[in-house]
């Protein structure tokens, strides 16, 4: 009886491991792990790819050694990190922060993708629900407002930092 109980308890508890992947190939790696798991019948209840953590994914499993063996055949997967992590440590990844959370009006941003890649612009408006920002390019002769997605820009100068600098000068 006791023996059965202990087996059931072991079965119930999954562990979360971190797998290092090629940057940008996290989703592909997750799909490949998913198909390999289906073929080999390794118990993997879930695979998690978070937008904040590039080059890593989380895998919920029971047997680390079997996962280690399996990812050797997946080209995008690099290795499995030592030790497991409790769910509490990755809970914040399950509710990703808004892409515009760290951007405020007046900030200077650099476009990191899209047709204006490499251009700098000033943020004029932020739409929290759509996670979009409206910017005005510095190099355009006529200031035309352009609306882009929050993940398409990188903040290079914050309005708050500039204010502090000006206050110091005074």
């Amino acid at each position, binding site marked *: 009886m006791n023996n059965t109980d202990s087996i059931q308890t072991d*079965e*119930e508890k*999954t562990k*979360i491991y971190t797998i290092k992947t090629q940057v940008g190939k*996290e*989703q592909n790696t*997750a*799909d490949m*792990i*998913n198909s390999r*798991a*289906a073929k080999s019948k390794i*118990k*993997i*209840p*879930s*695979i*998690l*790819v*978070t*937008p904040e953590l590039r080059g890593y994914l*989380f895998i*919920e499993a029971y047997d680390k050694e079997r996962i280690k063996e399996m990812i050797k055949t997946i080209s995008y997967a690099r290795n499995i990190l030592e030790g497991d992590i409790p*769910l509490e440590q990755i*809970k914040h*990844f*399950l*509710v*990703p922060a808004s*892409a515009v959370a760290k951007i405020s009006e007046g900030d200077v941003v650099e476009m990191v993708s899209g047709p204006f890649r490499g251009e700098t612009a000033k943020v004029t408006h932020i739409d929290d629900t*759509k*996670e979009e920002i409206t910017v005005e390019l510095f190099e355009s002769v006529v200031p035309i407002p352009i609306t882009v*997605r929050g*993940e398409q820009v990188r903040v290079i100068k914050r309005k708050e930092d500039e204010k502090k600098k000006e206050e110091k000068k005074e």
Partner: protein
Amino acid sequence: MKIIRACKTCHYLTEKESCPFCSSPTSKRWRGYVVIRNPESSQVAEHMNIKKPGKYALKVM
């Protein structure tokens, strides 16, 4: 190339304009990727309140 869309209600990933599970509209804009293979034994599925196996988005815009 097929565009994967995410249900605005349950976050289930599908190619269809409406979710096959809850019939809610789907969106082309989503972030994060979760594969739930066994919702009964998954801590992640329990935390995200997912009852059906499949692929899900973490956030849908």
